[in-house]
């Protein structure tokens, strides 16, 4: 019986490997189905699913907070807060396939509430990123580094909504649909917000 189960397990793993190699274009669809199922498990109160959600997204959410301008400590706190809110409000998620965008939306709201609570503080963190030495060396080519630094500063100067749009789409690599969900606006509104932000950036770093 154990031998049979092991054989089945091997066959399934093999099928999985073939699947990944032969159907890379199905990855997005697979991801959506996985999100839907994960959302179902969360709605049913499954703690293991809550743990999986953390493993999948804690890095992304932390970096999202950092890129929105929070320092290390605040970013960690807001990451924790975002997950707590997600677990509590999972029942309100209508479409499980939009889990990622929805989680980003919660994180965005947590960030917004933080700025509101700390109005007097400087809006942007002066704490830089701890970029690994090798990657700084790689990007240290023909003035690109300087332009990147100017772009980084220009993004930090953008109004919050525009900055959020640039961060979601270009830095967090969310699709337009996911990013619009994360920003809590329609796709068209997000696109126009993003194009306005790009216009400002182009003018700012001439």
């Amino acid at each position: 019986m154990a031998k049979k189960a092991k054989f089945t397990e091997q066959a399934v793993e093999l099928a999985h490997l073939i699947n990944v190699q032969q159907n890379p274009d199905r990855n997005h669809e697979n991801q959506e189905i996985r999100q839907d199922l994960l959302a179902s498990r969360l709605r049913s109160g499954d703690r293991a699913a809550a743990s999986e959600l953390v493993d999948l997204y804690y890095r992304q959410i932390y970096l999202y907070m950092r890129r929105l301008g929070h320092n290390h400590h605040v970013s960690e706190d807001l990451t924790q807060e975002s997950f707590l809110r997600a677990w509590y409000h999972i029942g309100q998620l209508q479409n499980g396939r939009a889990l990622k965008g929805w989680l980003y939306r919660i994180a965005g709201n947590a960030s917004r509430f933080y700025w509101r609570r700390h109005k007097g503080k400087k809006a942007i963190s002066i704490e830089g990123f701890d970029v690994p030495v090798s990657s700084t060396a790689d990007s240290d080519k023909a003035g690109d580094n300087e332009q990147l630094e100017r772009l980084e500063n220009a993004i930090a100067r953008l109004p919050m909504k525009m900055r959020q749009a640039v961060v979601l789409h270009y830095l967090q690599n969310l699709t337009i649909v996911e990013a619009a969900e994360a920003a809590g606006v329609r796709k068209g509104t997000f696109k126009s917000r993003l194009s306005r932000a790009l216009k400002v950036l182009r003018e700012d770093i001439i």
Partner: protein
Amino acid sequence: MEEEKLEKLLKELPGRMAEPVRPGLAGDVKRRIPQQLRVHRSRMDTISIMIDLRISRLAAAAVIIITTIFCANFFGLRGSTGGDIVEAIEYSLAGENVGRSEILTNMAVMYEGLLKEGKDVVYYGDSIDPEDKFAVLMHWKLPNDRYRVIFNDLRIMTVSPDVLIMLQAQMHQDRMQK
């Protein structure tokens, strides 16, 4: 600045605006997962409405029990305080197996959706052993003659017809042995 140049710089920026995340952060977040993950549901069932009305759980339970007993008496069901009613109340408030049943409900909805899309779909529902993580919960045929399979542990993969036949044979054998 040219549009293409800006796009190029924006694509390089994620690597620059990144840093290693403290390894203990995931553990810190996980430690805050409540022991009993109680979900605030926004559905229109009785308990959710009570929660939305900000009535305490105890008061909500009392209202449900009194209403159930009142209805049972009104419609003349036997033993209004007897076993049947208590069982019904226990069933309505029970938390056990909710996870599994909700997953099956969601899968059933997904099954209906795939059927409407005209997919050649088979759903095994609660006929399979909940303990067997390799049992096939649902599968449907893809245009390339392969099959998308969702397993009991909710893993999803695309398999060839041969592998699907093997999985089905395994399920059938297991069922016969039991």
